[in-house]
């Protein structure tokens, strides 16, 4: 694997979706190439940053109650038809 390939598949490597052999090739390249090692570190940090900032907020409580009511109503309707 050369630097060009690393740039092209870096996202997929970080996602752990490259397949076993390519994942190994990628890691070997990183061990030899400081630039690509930094590159991977930068991208990995960015990923963590976005994930942290896009944290999942809890759904509103009234929505949870509304969903539970809707499912119960649906279930009751079914039971009545049996």
């Amino acid at each position: 694997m050369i630097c060009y390939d690393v740039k092209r598949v870096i996202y997929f490597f970080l996602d752990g979706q490259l397949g076993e052999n390519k994942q190994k090739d990628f890691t070997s390249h990183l061990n030899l190439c400081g630039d690509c090692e930094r590159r991977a570190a930068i991208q990995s940090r960015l990923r963590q940053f976005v994930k942290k900032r896009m944290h999942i907020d809890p759904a509103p409580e009234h929505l949870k109650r509304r969903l539970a009511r809707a499912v119960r109503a649906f279930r009751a309707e079914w039971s009545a038809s049996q």
Partner: protein
Amino acid sequence: MKSAEVHEHEQGWDFEKAAMPYVDSLYNTAYRMTRNSEDAEDLVQETYLKAYKYYDKFEEGTNFKAWLFKIMKNTFINNYRKKKLSPHKIDFSEIEESYERVIQKNAPDLIKDPESEIFQDMMDEDVKRSLDSLPHDYKMVVLLADIEGFSYKEIAEILDCPVGTVMSRLYRGRKMLERTLLEYAKKYGYIRSGEPVKMRSRKDEVKPKKRAPGEGDAAEVHEPEDGDETVLFADDEEFEFELEEEREEEEFQIE
């Protein structure tokens, strides 16, 4: 039809217990899709009722969360996208690798210091707005992969498209997100040092200027122009990396 009621009746299974843990994820994604809390709540409710009703379509042993997301995506397309479906025109030639360059130039110590972040002062809302600004298809893959943690295969299943398409959209979507984040950082001064420099792209060849008599070499400096959309943070080096604009969506393959 064997819906969730039958399953509950026969097996003592509880739909609410099974589905409720995903309500936060579904609601957050619904909100990013509709950008409106009322529509997001309606979308989640419709998703839940459909999942309940069509539970027989769920294949045991597959990912229940992915199945719920798929129902939500289909419901969204049916209900909302028809109304205001405007095709996005994207000029992929504008997406260039600039993020790494900015980090290397402005924050070389970033890698050594795990606590520092180039965007650390950026508001959560700016990050959300950056993601919201992506065209729908690209926003969806980035959300599903980076926030919800689905695998490519699961995303392909949710969005009804080949894995290669997922990869290509992720590639471009993340590049667009990097660019948007940099633009926000520039706009609100989150980047602590470094001068904005015109970003070069292949389409953007420097045109020879007519030289006025007596004008020296200084005239060759290419100044960023107002309203130039490709002005970003970048140094003066050539971009080593370029997106192949002509690349077909399906081209990415694993192994």
